[in-house]
C-alpha cells in the first residue's frame, strides 16, 4: 500500500533531492523501514529507538503521530506522511 512521504530540505540528501518519495507498509514504522531500503540512513535521522526523535515531528494526514500510536500508527493507501523539524512559534 503506497503512501506519500514528504521529506524536509535537510533530509533530501538521502532522496537525491526529491521532496516526496513513496513507501509501503501497514504502519509508519514499516514505511520508514521500507524507505530506508532505498534511501539508506534516512530512518536513523527520524527515529531514535522505538520513537520519533525529539526535534523531529512526523504527521500522518496532518496529525502528529505521537498522539496516534507513534511508529505503530496505521497507514493506508493514499495517506500522506510529513516529516518536519520542530520549530518555535510566538
Amino acid at each position: 500500500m503506497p503512501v506519500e512521504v514528504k521529506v524536509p530540505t535537510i533530509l533530501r540528501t538521502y532522496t537525491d533531492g526529491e521532496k516526496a518519495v513513496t513507501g509501503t507498509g501497514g504502519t509508519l514504522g514499516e514505511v520508514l523501514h521500507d524507505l530506508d531500503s532505498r534511501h539508506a540512513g534516512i530512518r536513523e535521522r527520524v527515529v531514535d529507538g522505538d520513537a520519533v526523535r525529539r526535534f523531529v515531528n512526523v504527521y500522518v494526514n496532518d496529525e502528529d503521530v505521537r498522539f496516534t500510536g507513534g511508529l505503530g500508527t496505521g497507514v493506508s493507501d493514499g495517506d500522506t506522511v510529513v516529516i518536519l523539524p520542530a520549530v518555535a512559534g510566538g
Partner: protein
Amino acid sequence: MRFDSLLDSVGRTPLVGLPRLSPSADVRLWAKLEDRNPTGSVKDRVALAMVVAAEKDGRLRPGCTILEPTSGNTGISLAMVARLRGYRLVCVLPENTSVERRQLLGMWGAEIVTSPAEGGSNEAVRVAKALAQEHPDWVLLYQYGNPANSDVHHDTTGPEILADLPEVTHVVAGLGTTGTLMGVGQFFRTARPEVRIVAAEPRYGELVYGLRNLDEGFVPELYDEALIDTRFSVGPRDAIRRVRELLDLEGIFAGISTGAVLHAALGEAARAVDARKQADIAVVVADGGWKYLSTGAFEGTVEEAEQRLHHQLWA
C-alpha cells in the same frame, strides 16, 4: 465595564457563538475573542503576567531593559506593558514577519534586532540567547520557558472558558510557545479531565524549516505533550481558506493562525457529528486580521494568497 487602567482591562474576553460554521444544534463552535485585549492579541495576558512575575521575584527593577525573541504579538504586548511600567524593550524579530508588526513595535517604543528569515523563530531564540550573554544586565523573560506564560492561561483563560461554556467538550488553540495550551490543558486536566485539548500548529514554507541539521530543532521548555490530546499541522492553504470563511460567514476578522485553529476545530466537529455525539468546541482566536493585511492573505484567490505567504511567518 470600567477599569482603573489599560493593564487592568487585560483578559475577560468575550466568547461568541459561531452559528453558521457550527455543523448542527448538537455540535457547536464558540470563538474566544482574544483580539479584544488592549494591543489586540492573547499575548497581552502573557506579557503582563511575565512582567509582574519578574517584578515580584526582583529580577525586574525600574529602568531595566527587557529582551525577548518574538515573531510579533508577544513583543507588541511587552512593548505596551514595558512603556506603562517604565522599562526599555529590545525584541529579536525574524526578518520574515509582517511590516505591521515592526510598525506597532516602534509605536510603543520597542527597539528591534532582526534575525535571519532562514530558521524562523528558532533563529530569533538563538540570537536573543547570544544577546543575553553579551548583556548580562538585560532581563530575558523568555516566553518559551517562562512558567508565568502558561500559568496565566491556567489562572484566567481556562476558567473563563469554563465559566462561559460549562458544557465545553473541546478546546482548540494554536501552538507556538505552547503557553496557551499548556495552561488551559493543565486547568482542564484538573477541572474537567474529559475535555479534549487540541493543538493546531502552523505549517510554514520550506525556508522556515531550513535548518542545518535536525538537532537544531526547537521544542519549547514549557511543552508537555501529556497536557494535550492531539496536535494537527495546518498549512497556509487551509488556514487562509478557513480564516476567510470565518469572515464571510460569521463576520469575524481574525489573524491567519486562527484559520489553522478553526480548521482543526472543524475536523473535531465533523468527528463528533459522525459519532453522533454532542460537542461544544471553544476556539481560541489569538488575534485579529489587521496585522496581516500587508501579507495579501485576504486578497485574490486562496492559491495566490498561499503563494504570498510561502516565506513568511504567518502565525
